[in-house]
């Protein structure tokens, strides 16, 4: 089956159904941290890491919950795991790269409330991916998030030099840009269409 192959899942999550631009997950950091290219890149890497860790944990937790027949606790368990994974990344980063830690600022603890990460955990459960597929899916989603963030940061840095009317400065302009970017990514839709 083509649709189950690891490469397909990876590409689907990264480009065809890009998490930010096609599924609207992780919009807050996408609008908040996309002002500069290097912070965007490090934010993307942090998100990829947290996604991988929480995806692995979510897979294990789901197995235990199914075994004990207490699936209704899934949401609470997932969010607790994600919060701890974020804490882990925060401590590691503070130790090894204090400058990066300061640059990301408030957005690092806010990864906890990044819906893309909980989204990955929930989607891999509802689509019943096996372990390897889950890994490919979360990696793809993280890479897709980073691509979107980088593209947006590049656009916004260019735009700083442009003269725009006063009313459209700030969030409104960023959203319009995101709309154009999203329109561009729709072009990839044909790639995954026949497989759903």
């Amino acid at each position, binding site marked *: 089956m083509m649709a189950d192959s690891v490469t397909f899942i990876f590409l689907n999550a990264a480009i065809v159904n890009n998490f930010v*631009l*096609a*599924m*609207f*997950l*992780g*919009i*807050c950091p996408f*609008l908040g941290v996309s002002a500069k290219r290097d912070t965007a890149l490090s934010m993307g890497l942090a998100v990829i890491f947290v996604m991988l860790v929480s995806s692995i944990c979510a897979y294990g937790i789901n197995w235990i919950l199914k075994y004990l027949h207490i699936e*209704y606790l899934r*949401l*609470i368990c997932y*969010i*607790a795991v994600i*919060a701890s994974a974020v804490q882990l990344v925060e401590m590691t980063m503070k130790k090894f790269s204090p400058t990066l830690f300061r640059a990301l600022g408030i957005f690092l*603890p*806010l990864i*906890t*409330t*990044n*819906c893309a990460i*909980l*989204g990955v955990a*929930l*989607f891999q459960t*509802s689509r019943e991916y096996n372990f390897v597929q889950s890994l490919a899916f979360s990696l793809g989603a993280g890479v897709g998030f980073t691509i979107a963030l980088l593209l947006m940061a590049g656009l916004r840095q260019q735009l700083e030099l442009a003269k725009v009317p*006063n*009313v*459209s400065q*700030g*969030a*409104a*302009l*960023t*959203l*319009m840009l*995101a*709309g*154009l970017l*999203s*329109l561009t990514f*729709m072009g990839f839709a044909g790639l995954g269409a026949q497989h759903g």
Partner: protein
Amino acid sequence: MASLPNQQETITLDTFLRGLWQENPVFVMLLGMCPVLAVTNSAINALAMGLASTFVLVASNSLVSLMRHFIPKQVRIATYIIIIATFVTMVDYAIQAISLELYNALGAFIQLIVVNCMILGRAEAYASKQRLGATIINGLGIGAGFTFALLCLGIVREILGAGSLFGFDLFGDQFQPWVVMILPPGGFFVLGAWLLLFNWLRTRREAKLLETEGAPHDG
């Protein structure tokens, strides 16, 4: 939020109205954007999402407000999240029981209410400091503001993208729908357009205020 950080707020009409307009979570504070963009491809989805979020916001913030003296400062965020997750699980199962069709349309976004920064933000900035009454009224206001914003988007997108409103056909067969409006880019465009409109209104009002500043002020 910023005006009285550590004092108890007395309940006035403003406690409610502020969330609807001045501190509107979507148009002014830009919080909780993901569901705003994702589920507003039709007006009915937008309304359901708004009501579900309002319920979670009011219920979880009331509990936070009641327990504000018992929650240790260090673990407060984790506690808030678990309280929110509990109510979201309830809403999730309730919607599934009421309308499976709606549940499928909203998809994972009901469960993703947990990570709506608006709710956590209100718990941290308001509910953890205020009495129960004020929290409920303020929560209702913010929730109404959120629902209002979702409807603003949902109505525009459904009319342009499908030619209907709440499922009723508006224009007849002649209408050629703008399919892009129901697709993801439409969400970004419509929200951007609303923000432009509100920005424009705000700058115009500020300009007016500046003009009348020289005149004798009577409010």
